[in-house]
């Protein structure tokens, strides 16, 4: 009996059960390049008898590239479908560059799912406004899948997506498909136009004035670079949206994903276990603090 009064559960060898830092081997089932630096991996457990744990939209896994390190990556698949473990990753550093080189059949390590998910339940009965910048569309996609799979539970659905150039548009085919649907509105913009792009040019918040939703009966979920979230939020609150219905996702350095290593502290919360999703009224007071 230890000081907290709980008994450690041990296995037959006398070893404490459940080492939360030990990954489970997963195999790359399929691999797809999305843009020049973003790719999607579909993973399955290497041991076929292992079940993929259920996940909620907005949660992430810690993905281990053998011998190199771990990175926290949001799950980008459909939470309503069992049998898939899908991640959309941007190759920005050493570990993600290694993951980008993997072929189907290769193994990675997976720990998770971790994190507080998008409050899709809170948005029931209201309009749902999803605002994505760049790779931020990937962590939002599961929320959209969930809403479309439970369409009657939501009012109007709006997806606003912005990225750097037309070459960086993520999930282009799906965006086109969603854009054709009669039961949701999709608006896309890029920061810099080019010869092939016939669509909107300008920053994401500009799309808000064209979006069809009721600011007094909506929930907004924003995912993208911190700067983008910072200039998007005033456009929403300016319309009368309350801060407790605006949700953002924070990103900080993570070494464990489970609240032990201390790296992802964001003031009084840990991004890994108290987030990464936060409502703006939770973090608003510190959101603009520099070097926080």
């Amino acid at each position: 009996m230890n000081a907290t009064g709980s008994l450690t559960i041990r296995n037959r060898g006398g070893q404490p059960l459940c080492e939360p830092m030990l990954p489970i081997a997963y195999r790359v089932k399929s691999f797809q390049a999305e843009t020049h630096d973003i790719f999607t991996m579909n993973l399955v457990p290497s041991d076929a008898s292992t079940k993929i744990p259920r996940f909620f939209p907005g949660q992430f896994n810690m993905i281990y590239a053998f011998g190199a390190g771990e990175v926290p990556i949001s799950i980008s698949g459909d939470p309503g479908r069992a049998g898939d473990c899908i991640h959309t990753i941007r190759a920005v550093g050493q570990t993600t560059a290694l993951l980008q080189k993997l072929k189907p059949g290769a193994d990675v390590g997976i720990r998770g799912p971790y994190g507080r998910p998008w409050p899709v339940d809170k948005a029931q009965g209201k309009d749902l406004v999803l605002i994505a910048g760049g790779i931020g569309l990937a962590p939002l996609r599961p929320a959209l899948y969930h809403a479309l799979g439970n369409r009657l539970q939501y009012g109007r659905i709006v997806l606003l997506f912005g990225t750097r150039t037309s070459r960086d548009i993520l999930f282009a085919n799906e965006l086109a498909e969603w854009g054709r649907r009669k039961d949701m509105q999709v608006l896309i913009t890029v920061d810099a136009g080019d010869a092939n792009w016939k669509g909107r040019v300008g920053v994401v918040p500009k799309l808000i004035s064209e979006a069809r939703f009721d600011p007094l009966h909506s929930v907004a979920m924003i995912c993208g670079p911190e700067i983008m979230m910072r200039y998007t939020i005033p456009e929403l609150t300016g319309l009368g949206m309350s801060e407790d219905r605006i949700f953002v996702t924070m990103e900080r350095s993570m070494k464990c994903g489970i609240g032990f290593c201390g790296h992802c502290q964001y003031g009084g919360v840990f991004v890994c276990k108290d987030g990464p999703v936060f409502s703006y009224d939770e973090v608003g007071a510190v959101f603009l603090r520099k070097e926080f």
Partner: protein
Amino acid sequence: MNRFEASDLGKLLSSIESAGYRLVGPRVYNQAVVYDEIRGLNDLPRGWTDEQGPGFYRIKKTDSRAYFGYSSSPRTWKESLFKSRERLFSSTKTKNGSIQFTREPVEAPKVAFIGVRACDVVAIAIQDRIFIEPRIQDPAYQARRENALIVAVQCTSSSPTCFCASMNTGPEVRGGYDLALTEIVSEREHYFLIQENSAEGERVLALFERSGHLNDGIEEYRACARPVFEEVARTQKRRMDLTGVRKLLNNNFEHPRWENVAARCLNCTNCTLVCPTCFCATVEDTADLGNSTAERWRRWDSCFTLDHSYIHGGSVRYTGKSRYRQWMTHKLSTWWDQFGTTGCVGCGRCITWCPVGIDITEEAEAIAKNENN
């Protein structure tokens, strides 16, 4: 509350050993009192005392008979529970890319911590809340913690850098220990008071009772020990406003004092190394040249490094000022939000071991004195 003569201290240590525990306790090494493996009475720093101040630490031999006449150590008990380097797992990869993960067996021998000061007892309890919390446990920490016997030795004096009284952690222990000793030394007498506080403490005390002479000690506690504790608490010069500092630091994020301390702080990470509650760690993944076997190690880290807040492209806290502010605000303020208690136990190690003598109590006072509105 019992008492025994100091001449029986060796028998107490033997009883603890016969209860199955290895002994880790204070000894003199490399011009400091450190916590390390000890074999018995003779290893204890009898007669030694320490002199501490901001950026200052010396030990001195006196002709006192006291075994525990020093205040604190640059070492902490987190070294035994939350090890500075630990392998988490090893793995192998075949040529076709399939990975096998092998869990690291947990080593958790039964160890008795001899000489845990009241502040350090609380520090252990604080770390328990991090590593053994309801949802996820660190199994190695938990196993070592269960097999640890905490034998506190209460403080009958304090160092100038101590401020346990205002942090409500000492000089007297309140809980969280198995056995607590108080050493009373005078011209004519030398004895120990001993109090048990757990089932395991009772068991060890019963073993000791068979070989040593235990008398009732409640009178001596009232007459000698308690007045000393009160005197120690009363005369501590350094103070911290335990509850007030929480809001103070949250409300003064842009206070000019941060620039002031940043000009002095070397970002050397000494404070985080000696702090008994600091828990930041990083993970090192390595592989052999053939990339066929790999290991993951966890090692202590410090929020004073640039690396600590690095996310693709740069560090969030890229100035020394923001890193000092992070450490102090976490320790005294946001720790409350995270774990429900303060993170500071008032042991004063950060003051003693800071090479430029930055004093966390002085910094808090300076901010409070001309607070932003």
